[in-house]
C-alpha cells in the first residue's frame, strides 16, 4: 500500500469522517452543547459537581468512532427484547459499563444513602406538620404530568418529565431509567439545571402568593428531639413506607439507612465514607454515564424543548403548591405557620430552605426560618421518593 493509501485510510477512520456520516452533524452540535454546559458549570458554577461530569460525558459520547458509548446497546431493539448483557460486557466501552449502574438502578439509591447521612430529620420530627408541606410541593410532579400528557407524550414519558418537579436529581434519574430511558439525557440535564436555579425561580412565586404580613410570621421554637426518637424515626419510616409502597422501598430504605448510620453514632467510619468518598465516586460515575446518553438524535428534538418547558412548569407548580398549602396552614393554626416554609417542600436540600430563610429575612431581618424550613425540605425528599414509587407502580 502506498503512503497516500495509508493516510487516506487513517482519515476515513478518524472522527472527522464520522461527522459526514448519516446524522453525524448532530454529534457536532452536541459537542458544541457540551462545551456550553461546561462553561456554565465552570464559569457560572451551575451545580458543577454534576453538570461538569454530565457535560463531559456528553462530549465523550458524541465523538464519532470513539466507541466509549454505544446507545444502540440500550435503546430501540434492546428495550423490546431485553438488554443483551453479554454483548454490552464484551463489546462495550467504558461508559457502557458505567451506565449499567444507572440502568440497573444502582447509583441513585447509593446517592440517597449519602444524602441520608447528611440529613438531620430533627426539625421534621419536632414538627410533623411539615410532612404535609413536603407532600403539597409534590403537586408539581403531577401538574407537569398533566401538562406533558396534554402535549401528547406517552404516559411513561410524561411521568418521567413530571418527576423533575420533585427537584430531586437521583429520584428523577431513577424513575426515568425505569420508565423512559431514551429521555434520560435531557431529563437529567433539565433536573440538575433547575435545581441550580432554585434561588432564582422560587422567590418571585413566593412573593406573589404571600402577603407581607404572612411573610413576617415568626414561628415557635422547635422542641428538642431526643436521640432515641432520631434513631427510631428512620427505622419506622422505612417499615411503614416500604410495606405500603414497595416500589419506593429502595429509595426510602437507603435514605433512612444513611440517616440511621448518622444518628446511631456507633458507625462513624462508614457514615463518613457514605457522605464523602462514596457520594463522590457515585457522583462521578452517574454524571458521566448520564451525560453519555445524550446523543444527537434524541437530544436535539422538539421533545427536549417540551421537557425543558415542562420541567420549569413542574418547579413553579411545586413551589406554588407548597406555598399555598403553607397559607392554608397559616390560616388553620391562626397565624403560627409562616407560609414561606412551604416552598421548601421541593426537595432541593438545603437550597430551598435557604431560599425560604432569605425571603423571610427580606421581610423581617430578625426572622430565622432556616431550621423551620428544613422540616418541609427533608420531608420533600421522602415525598418525592414516595411519588416516584407511585409513578413507577402505575406506569409499569
Amino acid at each position, binding site marked *: 500500500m502506498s503512503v497516500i493509501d495509508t493516510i487516506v485510510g487513517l482519515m476515513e477512520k478518524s472522527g472527522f469522517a464520522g461527522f459526514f456520516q448519516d446524522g453525524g452533524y448532530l454529534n457536532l452540535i452536541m459537542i458544541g452543547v457540551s462545551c456550553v454546559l461546561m462553561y456554565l458549570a465552570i464559569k457560572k458554577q451551575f451545580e458543577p459537581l454534576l453538570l461538569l461530569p454530565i457535560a463531559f460525558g456528553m462530549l465523550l459520547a458524541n465523538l464519532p468512532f470513539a466507541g466509549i458509548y454505544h446507545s444502540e446497546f440500550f435503546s430501540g431493539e434492546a428495550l423490546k427484547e431485553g438488554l443483551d448483557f453479554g454483548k454490552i460486557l464484551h463489546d462495550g466501552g467504558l461508559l457502557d459499563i458505567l451506565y449499567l449502574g444507572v440502568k440497573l438502578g444502582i447509583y441513585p439509591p447509593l446517592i440517597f444513602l449519602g444524602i441520608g447521612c447528611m440529613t438531620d430529620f430533627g426539625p421534621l420530627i419536632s414538627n*410533623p406538620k411539615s410532612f*404535609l408541606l413536603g407532600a403539597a410541593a409534590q403537586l408539581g410532579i*403531577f401538574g407537569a404530568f398533566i401538562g406533558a*400528557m396534554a402535549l*401528547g*407524550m406517552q404516559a411513561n414519558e410524561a411521568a418521567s418529565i413530571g418527576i423533575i418537579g420533585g427537584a430531586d436529581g437521583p429520584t428523577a434519574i431513577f424513575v426515568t431509567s425505569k420508565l423512559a430511558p431514551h429521555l434520560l439525557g435531557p431529563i437529567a440535564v433539565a433536573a440538575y439545571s433547575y435545581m441550580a436555579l432554585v434561588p432564582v425561580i422560587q422567590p418571585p412565586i413566593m412573593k406573589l402568593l404571600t402577603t407581607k404580613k404572612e411573610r413576617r410570621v415568626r414561628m415557635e421554637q422547635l422542641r428538642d428531639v431526643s436521640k432515641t426518637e432520631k434513631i*427510631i424515626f428512620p427505622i419506622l419510616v422505612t417499615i411503614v413506607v416500604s410495606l405500603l409502597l414497595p416500589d419506593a422501598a429502595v429509595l426510602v430504605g437507603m435514605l433512612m439507612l444513611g440517616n440511621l448510620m448518622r444518628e446511631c453514632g456507633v458507625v462513624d467510619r462508614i457514615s463518613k465514607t457514605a457522605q464523602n468518598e462514596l457520594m463522590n465516586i457515585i457522583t462521578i460515575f452517574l454524571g458521566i454515564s448520564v451525560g453519555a446518553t445524550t446523543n444527537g438524535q434524541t437530544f436535539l428534538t422538539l421533545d427536549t424543548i417540551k421537557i425543558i418547558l415542562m420541567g420549569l412548569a413542574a418547579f413553579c407548580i411545586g413551589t406554588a403548591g407548597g406555598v399555598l398549602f403553607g397559607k392554608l396552614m397559616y390560616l388553620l393554626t391562626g397565624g403560627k405557620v409562616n407560609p414561606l416554609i412551604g416552598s421548601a417542600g421541593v426537595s432541593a436540600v438545603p437550597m430551598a430552605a435557604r431560599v425560604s430563610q432569605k425571603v423571610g429575612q427580606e421581610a423581617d431581618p430578625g426572622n430565622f426560618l432556616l431550621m423551620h424550613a428544613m422540616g418541609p425540605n427533608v420531608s420533600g425528599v421522602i*415525598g418525592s421518593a414516595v411519588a416516584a414509587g407511585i409513578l413507577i407502580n*402505575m406506569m409499569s
Partner: protein
Amino acid sequence: MFLNSLSAKVGKLLVEKTLDNGYTWGDVTNVTLSGIAIVFGMLVLLVFIILVFGFIMGMVNPKNKAPKVQKAKVEKKKTVKPSVASVPTAVASDDDEVIAVIAAAVNAMYEGSGKKPIIRTIKRADRKVGRSAWGSAGVFENTRAF
C-alpha cells in the same frame, strides 16, 4: 335543564376525548388524583405515627425537663464559661491576638482557684494619665507590704 345537559355533555367530552397519545382526559385525571391522594395519605399516616410516637416518648421521659433547669442554675454559679465581650477599640488585625493573649493571661491567673472568670470588656488604658503599666507594676512591687 339546559345547564344539566350541557355539563353532562362537557363531562362526557372531557372524560372520553382522546388525546394525541391515545389516552383520555379521564385516564389523566385518574392517575393524577390517585397519585396525589396516595402521596398525601402516606405522609399523613407518617405524621400520625410520629405524633403518637412523640407522645409515647414524652410519657416515658417526663422527668427530663425539671432537673435540667435546676442543673443549669446551679452550674451558672460555680463554673461560668469565660467569654470575651466586645472590645470598643478601633478595628485592627492585632486586636484578636491581643484579646486572646489577655484572655489566656487572665485564665492563667485564676487557674487552680476553681473559679472561671468572665471578661466583660477590654479597654486600652489611657497612658496620658499616670504611669505606664510596667511602671505601675514596678511601683506596686516595691511598695507592697512584706
